[in-house]
């Protein structure tokens, strides 16, 4: 299971890559493997607000609908429009071209309670 060291994680299997006041968000390798072939991603609207631990969208495979949970609160400044025509990028490159959205972070303090790569790996092992 790929768990990059430069990211932080949620128990719901989202990852977040912080870059100053901005952050890019996606779902993990573990999550996409559980889901199977992703065929549809419902992303939040540009300029909308997402709130930490609340749902912000949906990822669908043929057999499952999975809620996306916001790892942090912020304003949506970009969404990955490639996923509209190539949702399978979430499976093939969950940490790269399969990114889902980018936000302007509202409260950097929230980031402290995210899971480290080690803690996230542990959690995945327990779930298997």
């Amino acid at each position: 299971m790929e768990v990059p060291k430069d990211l932080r994680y949620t128990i719901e299997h989202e990852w977040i890559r912080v870059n100053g006041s901005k952050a890019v968000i996606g779902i993990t390798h573990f999550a996409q493997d559980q889901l199977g072939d992703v065929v549809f991603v419902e992303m939040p609207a540009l300029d909308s607000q997402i709130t930490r631990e609340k749902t912000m969208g949906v990822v669908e495979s043929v057999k499952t609908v999975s809620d996306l949970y916001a790892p942090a609160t912020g304003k949506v400044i970009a969404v990955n429009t490639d996923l509209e025509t190539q949702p399978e990028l979430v499976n093939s490159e969950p940490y790269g071209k399969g990114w889902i959205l980018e936000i302007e972070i509202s409260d950097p303090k929230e980031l402290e309670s995210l899971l480290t790569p080690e803690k996230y790996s542990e959690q995945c092992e327990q779930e298997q």
Partner: protein
Amino acid sequence: MSQESSTELKTTPFYNIHKELGAKLVPFAGWDMPIQYKGVIQEHLCVRNGVGIFDVSHMGEMDIRGKESKKLLQKLVTNDIEKMLDHSILYTVMCYEDGGVVDDLLVHRFSEDHYFLCVNAANSDKDFQWVRKIAATYDVTVSDTSAETAQLAIQGKDSEQLVQRLCDVSLNDLRYYHFKKAKIYKNDCIISRTGYTGEDGFELYTDSSLAEPLFLKILEEGKSFNIQPIGLAARDTLRLEMGYALYGNDITAKTSPLEAGLGWVVKLQKDHFIGKESLNNQKEAGLKRKLVGIKLLQRGVLRPHYPVFAEGQLVGELTSGTFSPSLNMGIGLCYVSPEHSQVGSRLTVGIRNQQVLAEVVKPPFVPPGVKHSLG
């Protein structure tokens, strides 16, 4: 096949192979079955473009023999057994007195006095009890042969080329909806030209205690055709692209075959069969609802139970729904009243808090690859 206690899942003869191949196994109709191996989309396209192999040993089989076999079957099924010749196969439904569906099934005729049935896994026990009950007053023997029977499906345009390599009889002259007895690899089989995918292909029935090596041999022989093992998830996307009904979703005890678009297997001119009067009455009164194909016109995935609207009014809910890998669109089936059943009618499907544009389509959603269609 191993019969576990009722609280445990049953497994087919190919269970260990599925595990070794890394299949995701899930409970289905009381069986631990492979839902996917490498991925639904990949598996689906493999069947559409080449050849795939399915373990369908969870399906039920019943042997019916004796002087009054034909008479019994004529009573049980809506289609006409009279026309059957030796080694032909008939798709039909069995109905209750009120016209609701007991199951859809395939009837195979060995001879006038000897048939075998293939029924849905979920209905295997129910169907056997139903048939046995009706058969009580007939001079026949009915046996449930599911436990001894393993079943494989090989589907895709390369099926014949592949299976011929291992088969001791000619498949070139095995016509659609007919079967032959054959030796395939080391296994005595019944091989039928049937399937649930819309592609050319075969279903093999063989002794379950000897079956495991056959699956591996077909996989090995199929390497030059890029064969893949195919799970139940792709089995569902394949059949739904064809608009084939699935019992439990599209046909149930509460739906009639006429409403489900299966009028072509209901021969109301037959003398008598269970449900004939009710179905006749339905036909005379005019159908109150019809099963139609629904295709999304916007991006999305359809699923069973999603509500369907016409001009803002609820008109039904999907009985089946999925994402079509061939079309890259959501597709489904839904019962609607006749005024909304015209091909091209614009509807919307409620997906979470959105109304997504859709239209009525006459299945198949994708042109079938199989040489002859039946309906």
